[in-house]
């Protein structure tokens, strides 16, 4: 049985003076217990909004959320504020992108961990501090007891992110969502954090939703990947299948655009032409059509549906039929 | 060679302006949709119109006492509305209504002059500090900081006290001096941030003369906050003038019709005829409010973060 079942999730933003904007448009996917699922896409694809919608963190006033988010058979979207608060932190955890701004600057790190423990596991402060030090140790922060009384600005970027992970995992949630957790960090630290995440979810059996725009991150971590474009899922595949033979032209384009160390000198980079601003609405056809090298006439007239395809799911009228070669643009 | 550079700089200017609506046009558009801004603007415009037209609108001469009114004055009685005298008499037998109308003129003049002096002097100081930098900047800013540290009313009182005789200029200068450090700081700050901005750096790199950079690039972009602050200062200067008059530091010429002065004079007559105090007070409050609303909504409208 799936841990999380997202069914037809949609989020529409309303802002005074502009047309309503559909950030997430009928997204569905499952997360099995203990598995790591990737949500990949550019900025504006709706991946972060999806995560916030699952956690119930979208502002109620401007955002209309519809669909179902079933966490162990309970629809999170139908819960009251109180019930949702009970689950957040305890059953669901989230790690955010910018570790400095995501931590309260005026209270010590220790308190930011112990407050979760006190809230959900009903611990006493002393006991919680011991547990907090232990958590910091497990995420690889040296001298954890001293760190408990330190403030976020006294830690390095990598350590802050580790602390955030410790906070998110403090109550051993069954699902962890990580929204671009390494984007704000140096490359070397990125690798460490990813390794840490990988190890922790393995040890604790936590399911992980990994949100990123970086396919390298996906390759190292995810069991299964959902590629999002324009607020919809356009491809879903097991990790190896995706990298070996991506079917959707967008995914193909992402993979092909990664520069390779063994490419011949002077070879040009292969970007995906156009930009997100060129999209046409999903209602009128395939949003990616204006930028798609494989586009047919039908792509601008009929909206492709998400259908099963070679073990995964695919939303495309004219998918790519062969594997990606090194540095090769799509024909 | 220089002509090529000059043409290049001009091209950059054109490009900078070509990119979308100017900040000013955008701001005006936004303000037209904002009810707060409209209220403030309406009040302000009405006030200015009243100030200009007052001498023609006043039914009686505001500067002479009338016998019909004076005859009825008693220690505990001041005539109310009578024929021809809409609001009756003031404490010396002048037509209260006419003085109230003409007071708009005097109040506006005092406020505008004080603000103008403050803006001009402040901008000179701030402009010098911002443009020249270095020790000039440090010296000027230390000086303004100290002035800023003193509570404005106390500073105004101190300046006003330096005049042996209270005249209209006493309050004007006192209020102007109080606002100078604000404008100095404001302009200097705006120019400093301009100095570090890319388009100024680009112009400097192209060899455009410093004077040109200051006047054509830095100043125009710094004017927004100055205009906002000037509007707000107008509001506070009207109130401060009233306060100084209340303390007896203002104009000694009691026949001058200025709302602050009228309010101060009417304090002791609340038992007899409270409207003598209330009408000028309400007038001051409404006008100050109008300028404040205008200034605040102008600030929000000019804030580049609000541009979509």
């Amino acid at each position, binding site marked *: 049985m799936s841990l999380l079942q997202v069914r037809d999730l949609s989020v529409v933003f309303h802002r005074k003076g502009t047309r309503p904007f559909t950030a997430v448009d009928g997204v569905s996917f499952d997360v099995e217990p203990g598995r790591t699922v990737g949500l990949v896409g550019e900025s504006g694809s709706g991946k972060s909004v999806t995560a916030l919608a699952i*956690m119930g*963190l979208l502002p109620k006033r401007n955002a209309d959320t519809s669909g179902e988010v079933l966490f162990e058979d309970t629809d999170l979207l139908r819960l009251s504020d109180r019930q949702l*608060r*009970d*689950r*957040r*932190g*305890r059953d669901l*955890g*989230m790690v*955010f992108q*910018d570790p400095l*701004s*995501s*931590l*309260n*600057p*005026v*209270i010590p790190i220790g*308190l930011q961990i112990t*407050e*979760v423990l006190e*809230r*959900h596991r009903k611990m006493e402060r002393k006991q919680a501090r011991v547990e907090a030090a232990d958590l910091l140790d497990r995420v690889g922060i040296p001298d954890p007891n001293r760190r408990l009384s330190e*403030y976020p*600005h006294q830690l390095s970027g990598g350590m802050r992110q580790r602390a*955030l992970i410790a906070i*998110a995992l403090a109550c051993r949630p069954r699902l962890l969502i990580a929204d671009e957790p390494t984007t704000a960090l140096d490359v070397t630290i990125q690798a460490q954090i990813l390794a840490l995440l990988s190890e922790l979810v393995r040890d604790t059996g936590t399911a992980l939703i990994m949100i990123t725009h970086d396919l390298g991150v996906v390759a190292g971590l995810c069991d299964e990947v959902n590629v999002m474009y324009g607020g919809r899922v356009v491809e879903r595949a097991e990790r190896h299948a995706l990298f070996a033979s991506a079917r959707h032209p967008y995914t193909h384009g992402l993979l092909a655009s990664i520069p390779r160390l063994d490419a011949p000198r002077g070879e040009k980079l292969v970007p995906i032409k156009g930009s997100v601003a060129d999209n046409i609405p999903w209602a009128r056809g395939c949003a990616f059509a204006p930028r798609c090298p494989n586009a047919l006439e039908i792509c601008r007239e009929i909206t492709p549906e998400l259908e099963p395809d070679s073990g995964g799911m695919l939303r495309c009228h004219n998918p790519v039929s062969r594997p990606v070669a090194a540095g090769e643009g799509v024909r | 060679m220089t002509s090529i550079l000059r043409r290049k700089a001009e091209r950059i200017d054109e490009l900078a302006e070509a990119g979308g609506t100017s900040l000013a046009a955008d701001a005006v558009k936004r303000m037209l949709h904002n009810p707060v801004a409209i209220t403030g603007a309406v009040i302000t415009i009405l006030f200015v119109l009243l100030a200009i037209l007052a001498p023609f609108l006043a039914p009686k001469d505001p500067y002479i006492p009338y016998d019909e009114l004076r005859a009825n004055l008693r220690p505990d009685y001041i005539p109310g509305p009578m024929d021809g005298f809409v609001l009756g008499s003031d404490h010396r037998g002048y037509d209260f209504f006419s003085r109230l109308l003409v007071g708009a003129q005097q109040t506006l003049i005092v406020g505008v002059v004080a603000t103008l002096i403050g803006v001009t002097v402040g901008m000179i100081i701030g402009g010098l500090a911002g443009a020249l930098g270095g020790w000039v900047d440090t010296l000027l800013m230390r000086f303004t900081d*100290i002035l800023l*540290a*003193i*509570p*404005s*009313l*106390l500073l105004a*009182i*101190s300046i006003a*006290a*330096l*005049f042996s005789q209270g005249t209209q200029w006493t309050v004007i200068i006192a209020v102007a001096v109080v606002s100078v450090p604000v404008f100095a700081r404001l302009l200097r700050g705006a120019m400093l941030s301009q100095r570090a901005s890319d388009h100024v750096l680009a112009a400097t790199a192209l060899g455009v003369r410093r004077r040109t950079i200051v006047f054509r690039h830095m100043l125009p972009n710094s004017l927004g906050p100055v205009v906002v602050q000037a509007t707000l200062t107008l509001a506070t200067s009207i*109130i401060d003038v*009233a*306060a100084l008059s*209340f*303390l007896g*530091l203002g104009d000694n010429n009691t026949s001058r019709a200025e709302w602050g002065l009228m*309010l101060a004079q009417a*304090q002791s007559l*609340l*038992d007899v005829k*409270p409207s003598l*105090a209330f009408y000028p*007070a309400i007038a*001051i*409050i409404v006008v*100050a*409010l109008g300028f*404040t*609303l205008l200034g*605040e909504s102008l600030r929000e409208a000019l804030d580049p973060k609000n541009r979509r």
Partner: protein
Amino acid sequence: MLRFVIRRLLQAVPTLLVLSVLVFAWLRLLPGGPATALLGDKATPEKIASLNSVLGLDQPIFVQYFKFLGRVLTGDFGASLISGDNVLTEIGRAFPATVELALAALVLAVGFGIPMGYLAARYRGRFLDNATVLTTLVGVAVPVFFFGVLLKYVFAQKLGLLPPSGRQDVTIDATHITGFFTLDGLLTGELDATWDAIKHLILPAIALASIPFAVIVRITRASVLDVQQEDFVRTAESKGLTTATIRQRHVLRNALLPVSTTIGLQTGLLLAGAVLTEKVFNWNGLGALLAQGIERRDYPRLQALLLLAAAVYVIVNLLVDISYAIIDPRVRVR
């Protein structure tokens, strides 16, 4: 932390010195000069000259300044030209009156201001918020002295609920120890004296508090709105913490930082407003001394008052800086 405090203390000294120079200069600039003021109608050029030499006013300006500084540091401020009393004693008597008034006003402004600002932010865009913002705008537009007069008129004259002026009824035979009338009543067990003092304190305190209240509400509201958008509040929400915890530990603790700086700055406004309010309500405090001193060119008194004001201002700002460092750990690093 200690180093921070010491550093701030040392920085305060040059500021005080500069302020003392300004006060000295200002005194010398006052029209007429002390000799003329003292002699009044009997002033003749010879008498002025001889009085000037007695007062030391014919010596070079630097000498005068240093003598001035010397007297200040030894606490010798001379006697008031108006009352003849020792200036420091006069100030000592008036000081508690003003402090009592200012404290009461501050308590009102902060005690009502912060909650209102928070509520306005919480119910943003709704009636409470709009009403609050409008009230603050009007509050700043109303001249303090007029508001005081209005309060007096409505509550004292028309409704007769509260006394119109002064600090205490003479009919109540109250013993005064500290000069803080409310406190004195408590200390001596004369509760009717305390109650009477409070009744006298209400109207002037409300009048004085009006502008600081408006400012505090606006800044609290703006600050809370800003903080509510911050990422760490989102993190706190994601942890499933209760609304109360998030409000207190995460939102308020950050939102109140700019507010506490303002409170320090409000002291300046309070001092200025006190001058006006004390006149309206016949409150025998420092403001009244100042107003009278200016009117009658009482140099010794003015000198002492202005220096006192400067010192108080510098000290208050120092305290605000220190308290800011206590609340916000990031500041200490500097």
